[in-house]
């Protein structure tokens, strides 16, 4: 029985998901040519990857982290510092940033998985706040100013990344690579065990799975991919700042995933696109953005728990 499920899971890719993926890829390839602002699209892709990584944990592992900003922000600082102060080439800066986030994920994960449910959310939030205070005081982060004017450099010493035309393909490749990796993880035997733990942890334990280890691996993977997004984002904006480590950022990634659809593959991408567009268009109304975001939270939780992609998938009766 189990091996059957694994075989089906390993095959994994349904036709609908393949079509949805092709549409998404086509959109991000054509959109900059069609006249959408490339920096905006790159921002959407970075946050989409961030939200997908977050969703790996909540959507497939059932663990709600309220501290994911610490990975985004840490990777941002690591990548900006490596590129600006140490003169790392961009590919190494992003790799270094991803590794830093993975390490932070390992340390905080070992603590956080010791409690479940609501406590897990509170612990991750508190740990992230500790990381925030650390960066607020640490000398290398530049405090309130952040690390500014980071050089993007040349990719592999060949491709000049200074222009949007150079940077865009890199961000696209990082996003698509990360997305496919998450897709693969979700459909792997590991992903199936993770879902089993989400549904019924005691049962998974009784079947002989070391649930803590699975949860830790999922947590570290999620942190690592969030780091990949954060490291790339810092190069896109040539800036690493406290905004990316603050708890509001942790809330935003929850919101993106919730709007798009918890536990769906494409939901976080759609959610990130919606929330980033909304922030862009509502930028002039200042603090009202917070109110609007809070209202979206309330509406989603009360009446729209499946999210946009979840509703479509429900209507089509196919997983997306």
């Amino acid at each position: 029985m189990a091996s059957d499920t694994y075989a089906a899971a390993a095959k994994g890719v349904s036709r609908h998901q393949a079509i949805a993926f092709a549409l998404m890829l086509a959109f991000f390839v054509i959109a900059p040519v069609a006249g959408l602002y490339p920096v905006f699209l790159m921002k959407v892709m970075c946050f989409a990857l961030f939200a997908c990584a977050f969703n790996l944990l909540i959507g497939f592992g059932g663990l709600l982290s309220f501290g994911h900003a610490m990975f985004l922000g840490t990777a941002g600082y690591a990548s900006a510092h490596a590129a600006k102060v140490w003169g790392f080439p961009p590919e190494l800066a992003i790799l270094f940033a991803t590794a830093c986030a993975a390490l932070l994920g390992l340390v905080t994960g070992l603590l956080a998985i010791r409690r479940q449910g609501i406590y897990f959310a509170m612990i991750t939030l508190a740990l992230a706040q500790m990381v925030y205070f650390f960066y607020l005081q640490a000398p290398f982060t530049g405090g309130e100013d952040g690390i500014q004017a980071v050089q993007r450099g040349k990719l592999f010493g060949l491709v000049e990344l200074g222009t949007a035309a150079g940077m865009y393909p890199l961000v696209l490749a990082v996003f698509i690579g990360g997305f496919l990796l998450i897709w693969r993880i979700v459909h792997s035997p590991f992903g199936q065990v993770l879902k089993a733990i989400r549904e019924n942890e005691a049962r998974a334990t009784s079947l002989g799975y070391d649930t803590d280890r699975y949860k830790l691996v999922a947590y570290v993977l999620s942190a690592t991919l969030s780091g990949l997004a954060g490291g790339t984002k810092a190069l896109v904006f040539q800036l690493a700042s406290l905004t990316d480590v603050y708890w509001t950022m942790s809330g935003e990634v929850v919101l993106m995933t919730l709007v798009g659809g918890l536990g769906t593959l494409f939901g976080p991408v759609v959610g990130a696109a919606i929330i980033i567009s909304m922030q862009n268009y509502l930028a002039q109304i200042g603090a009202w953005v917070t109110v609007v975001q809070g209202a979206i939270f309330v509406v989603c939780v009360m009446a729209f728990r499946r999210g946009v992609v979840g509703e479509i998938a429900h209507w089509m009766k196919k997983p997306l």
Partner: protein
Amino acid sequence: MEIFGIPTQALFGQLLIGLINGSFYALLSLGLAVIFGLLNIINFTHGAQYMMGAFVAYLLLNKLGLGYWWALLFAPIAVGATGMVIERLMLSKLYKLDHLYGLLLTFGIALIMEGLFRNEYGSSGLPYPAPSQLTGGQNLGFMFLPNYRAWVIVASLIVCLGTWYAIERTRLGAYLRAATENPQLVQAFGINVPRMITLTYGFGVALAAFAGVMAAPIYQVSPQMGANLIIVVFAVVVIGGMGSILGSVVTGFGLGLIEGLTKVFYPEASNTVIFVIMAIVLLIKPAGLFGTQK
């Protein structure tokens, strides 16, 4: 006079600030624990409701001319009433779902409230005077103790112990504890459990508003005053565990004191010390100092 090379004046001054902070940690974590016990949700709006308590006091004074003592009475009632409305209209629809939805809902409500107050009053703090009866202070010989601060510590201790007494020693508290254990059975005995849940949430929220009024003369009244505080209180709750009322009170005051001491001996760590303690407690006793692992 010096202790460990620190002037006693500075040492006791920071300890006093630690006790004050501890009073607020205790009051807020107590409210969270009471709500969590019956509703099984973590009230993320708690910080915003603390802020609203302070704003009700500010508005009563500036619009109606009602002073501190009226605010101490009216703010908890008003904010507690809004809490009960939220519970009836929204939270009560979520009890059958995963408890995380309750967390997300209250987070959303907190964003709305803080955003609304920021639009109306800006981000800078507004001053609120201490009541005339409590201005001035006592010279204790080794330090100067402002009357208002002494009042905050005493009042919060009284409220905390009163809450403990009400829950652990009265008939109503017995119903409450029984409903925490097994709501179906208690309902079968003819007790209106849904109404009890609403009142409990209202009471927890009222505690937050009460803390907000008490905080108004010490910290300034500002829309963000609750946001960062609530994260520290979450850490306090994780350290203490939410199993026991007295446990959350003791943990609250204790951590306030430790934070105050850190400010004296190693100021750089004063923002993070509580989180570090949380990490250590998670390693040694994951259920929290006074908690029981379910």
